[in-house]
Each structure stands twice: as C-alpha cells, then as structure tokens.
C-alpha cells in the first residue's frame, strides 16, 4: 500500500489489530473471533493459529456471521466479527440492526479496508459505512487513526459493553509521531494540534494528512488545529463545539462519502449548537470509485493534504466568522 495515503513522514507498523486481538483473547476467555472467509486479509490468521477453539469461520456468508455472533454474545461471549468494511456494512445491515444494535448485543464488528484504501474496486470500497452505522441507535462507531490507537481500541471495544463498529485499514498502518492522539477511548475526540484560526476534524487515515495540512498552513501564517475524531458516535460534542466556536473555521476530512459520516455529524452538531462558523467537507464527493492503488485513488478523489489545505484557505478567505453564535463552555 502506498504511503501517500498518510503523511509521508509518518512511520508505520504492521498488523496492529491482529496482534492486539490475540493479546486480548489470551486475557479474556469470552473473546471469540468470527470470520467470513477473509482470515488473512483481516489479520486474524494469528488468532486462528494460536486460539483455534475460539475461532469460527462462517464462510462467505456475512449475514449469517452476524447472526451467529449475536447468538454467541447472548450466551455470554464477546465476539469480534472480522470482514471488509463494505461487506460488514452493506451486506449484513439488517442483521446488524436487528440482532446487534437493537438488543445491544455485545458484538464488535471490525470492518477492514474502509473508503478508498482498497484496489478491489467499487464492490470493495466502503464509502458509506460510517453513514450506515451512525444511523443505528445504540451503535458506537469508531475509526482509529494509527497503530497505537488500533491497539488501544481493541481493548476499549472489549471493555465497552454493547455493539461497536470499527473501521480500519489492514496491514501497514501509520504510527503517529506525536504522543497526542494515540490514546483511544470510546466517545472521545483528541486535539492533536492546537490552533486558533481554523480546525480540521479528521478521522482514520485523514488525521496524518490533516496534521500535514496544518503544518503547511502554518508556513503561510495560518494557525490551524487538528482534532482526531476517532469516535464518530457517540461524538464528543462539547469538544467539537468549543473548538469550532473558538476558531470559526471548520474543515472535516474523512476517507468516506461527504454524506452521512464525519462531515454530517459535525454539521448536525454545530448547526444545532448554533455555532456560527465557516464549514467545508473534504471527502469522497458522493461518487463511486474504481479499483486502483490507494495513492492514486486518494489523489483522484481529493483525499489529500492539498485538498485539506485548499479547503482551509477557501474558508479563510471568506469573511471572518469568529464569534460563536452563543457562548459555549466545555461540559
């Protein structure tokens, strides 16, 4: 996978998820691993080979895999279901809604290869999984930004009682250099870079690109904050409202359609809070894509540092809109 889907100066790690899941399962006997014929591609070969008695391959049958996981959760297990984001979300949505979200079954769904990180083409690209999962009551929705967050997230998911959907890149993932933003708590967003002129709310692979963008903007005198919104639901509204109000210029950046995901979550939140600010979305512009390298696709579909920089500049060139509509204090 080409490194240009994250900031070029970011070091990387391999298979953060697969290792963390085995580590977790060694501690907690109720962890079971459920697959749908994508064991290698979801880094769960390690689990299969070291804890085979708690590894259940359901075959290429995502709907059934979710139902099986829900049944096991009702019986007391903590199932992690592993498949591609696109199949977890599109193919088994009714099953997730009714057997996982509604009963608050303790099922964790790990969806790999979100957005345009896969050369698998339109059928493999989950460009609306955040929209789908966010629309479900009771569902926590997370997207860790680097290997450390992935590791922490695996443990956080198990500690969280109830359903969680996590989307993450497989294989090689970035390791963020700054200490900030590597922790992971469900329900928290992390200010990874301070700034007073604008804020970039980013998730997943877009976080390192956002940091890069902020650095570039700093060189032209714009002081831009970056928030790693690693939990999309429940959203840490207070933090988002506060920083948006302080900066008055908001850009969202996600490896996802601009409809229904982070961009929408932020727009809903700020609109409802009555925050006066300029706002722009960076993301996939409501279009299907094709199969190609992630680097090519990120470039073609505008998931780049440059796109974020441009969005910040565009907002910044508009009329200043710094004053919050009403004062907001952190809860």
């Amino acid at each position, binding site marked *: 996978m080409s490194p240009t889907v994250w900031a070029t100066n970011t070091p990387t790690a391999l298979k953060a998820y697969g290792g963390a899941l085995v580590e977790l399962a060694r501690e907690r006997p109720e962890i079971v691993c459920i697959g749908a014929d994508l064991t290698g591609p979801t880094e769960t070969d390690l689990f299969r080979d070291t804890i085979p008695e708690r590894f259940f391959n359901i075959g290429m049958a995502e*709907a*059934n895999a979710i*139902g099986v996981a*829900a049944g096991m*959760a009702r019986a*007391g297990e903590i199932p992690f279901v592993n498949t591609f984001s696109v199949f977890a979300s599109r193919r088994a949505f009714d*099953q997730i809604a009714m057997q996982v979200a509604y009963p608050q079954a303790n099922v964790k769904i790990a969806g790999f290869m979100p957005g345009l990180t896969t050369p698998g083409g339109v059928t493999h690209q989950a460009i609306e999984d955040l929209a789908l999962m966010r629309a479900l009551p009771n569902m926590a929705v997370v997207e860790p930004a680097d290997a450390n967050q992935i590791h922490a997230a695996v443990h956080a998911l198990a500690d969280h009682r109830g359903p969680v959907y996590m989307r993450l890149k497989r294989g090689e993932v970035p390791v963020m250099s700054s200490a900030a933003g590597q922790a992971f708590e469900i329900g928290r967003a992390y200010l990874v870079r301070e700034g007073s002129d604008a804020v970039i709310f980013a998730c997943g692979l877009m976080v390192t690109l956002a940091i890069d963008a902020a650095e570039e903007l700093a060189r032209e005198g714009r002081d831009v904050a970056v928030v790693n919104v690693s939990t999309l639901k429940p959203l840490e509204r207070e933090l988002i409202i506060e920083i948006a109000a302080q900066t008055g210029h908001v850009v969202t950046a996600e490896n996802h359609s601009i409809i229904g995901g982070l961009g929408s979550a932020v727009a809903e939140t700020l609109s409802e809070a009555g925050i006066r600010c300029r706002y722009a979305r960076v993301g996939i512009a409501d279009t299907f894509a094709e199969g190609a390298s992630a680097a090519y696709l990120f470039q073609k579909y505008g998931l780049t540092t440059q796109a974020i920089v441009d969005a910040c500049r565009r907002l910044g060139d508009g009329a200043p809109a710094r004053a919050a509509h009403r004062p907001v204090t952190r809860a």
Partner: protein
Amino acid sequence: MSGADLTMAASPAAAPARTLERLDAGVEEVRRRADAIRRQVLRTVARVGEGYLLQALGAADIFAALYFSELRLDPANPHDPRRDRCLLCTAHNSVVLYATLAERGYFPAQELESYGQDGSPYEIIGSEQVRGVEGTFGSLGQGLSVAIGFALSARLRETRSRTYAILGDGEMQEGQTWEAAMAAAAYRLDNLCLVVDLNGMQVEGAIDSVLPLGEVAAKWRAFGWAVQEIDGHDVGELLRALAIARDTAGRPSAIVATTIPGHPISFLRGRFEHYAKLSPQQAQDALAELDASASSNASFASTTPSPRKEPA
C-alpha cells in the same frame, strides 16, 4: 435480554441451583396443553379481532411438545445460562408463543389482555421485551443464525444446553436460512434442532401461488441435516422426532412438520389467510369446538407443571 445473559455468564456464582429438567409430559398431557394454548390464542386474538391466528392454531402442537415435554427451562429464572434455548424465528406468530409461555408459567395469562394494545410489551409482532422470548425475529430469516450462535457457545462452554428453532416455511425463501443451514452442518451442530412449520402459507396465501419451495425435506438433506418428516399435529410423532433428534450425533436435526393453518377448528382449518379476522362469535364457536373435543379435564390450564426429577 442479552444483558441478563451476560450477567449470568460473567458471575457464575449467581447461577441458580434449581434443577433444570425436561417436563417429559406424555402424549395426553401435551395434547391437553396444546388445547389450552389454542384457547389462550383464541381469547387473545379475539380481543383484538384479528391476528396471525391460523398459524398460531396450526403450530400449537409443536409449541406444546417443545415447552411441555422437550425443553429444559425454568420459568422462574428465564435467563438461567444452562437452559435450552427455543427461538421462534417467525416473530409475527408470537401470539402462540405468548400463549405457551403463559401456560408454562412465565407470566400470568391475564397479562395477555393487553396484547396488541399501545404500550403493551405483548406486541403483535413479538420482541424480546417479553419474558421468556429469546430474541427479536420479526425480520424473517434471521433466527436460525442466532440459534447457531447459541449452539456454538454451548459447545464451547461444554454445557448440556440444546438449541431449538421454529422456522416458518416461507423463511426458506430467505437466503440467510441456507447460509445458516450450511454452517450448522459444517459445524456438526447436533445440539441444534430445527422444527420447520410447514403450513404451506405465506403473506399472499398459499406458498405455491407465490414462489413454490419445491421439495423441502430433500433440501435439508442435501444441506447435510438429519431430516424427519412428520405430521405436525400428531403429538406422538412430535415427541418421538424430538427424542430422535436428541439422540442424533454429528449432525443438526430438522423436523419437517406439516401443519394445517387453523387446525383443528372446523371453520378455520385449511384457510390460507395470513392475518385473519376473528369475530367474537367465531371465537366463541371455536372455543366451543375445542371444549367439545377435549377430554373431561379441560381445566388443566391452571395447574403448574412439575418436572420429572432426573440427574442434572
């Protein structure tokens, strides 16, 4: 609800000490129970004036056989982790499940007076909000998958718990049923027993007029299940089939039980109305028919069943 299950599982110290055995009622008592279930169904549906009535009457013998002979359950402790699980995959047929659960002592039958009313947990299309209901299966075709999860977990935990699922024949049109069928066979889940309620009916009437299923038993056999074809109104056959399923090793069992919607009420039997009207007069007539055909001890309904004592 799953929450309670989780608590149980997390703190085994809290697990109840009560024995948990099959009632093993004989044919006669199961028949009487089926009659009592039918009466309760009729009274419950009559209050609303319509409902999934014909399926309920048709499935009453299956429910009586399961809940009064086969299943290891404790109505006083519906979340006992050692219990057998019984999943009604067609939640729109919940009225027969409610009637059965009331009859079995999960809750007083009077509670069913709120059936179908705003604010009542006894919804027309049932959910797990009702005591004793193991899941929410109004979106059809999902129950068998969840049953597999129970069965896999029981095996993992080395418990005696068996899992039962009652499938609507229309659900065989949903592909998820066959995903589950293949997985259950692949995992050799002999602690899983499926009863297919072959009533020949779906929303629009006769299944054959909608999308014919073709050979049913042959399908389950081809999917690797141990299949028994029985008359779903013959309680003796039902009990035998359930016992055989219990003794079948290495494969999940499917009992294909032919039932007749509305059975045995003369003026309802064999009608293919998916959501049927029931006037007060019809309800009375139906109850009278049941009274007439029932043996003298029709008042069985109120006695509490006592489990046959067997080693745990």
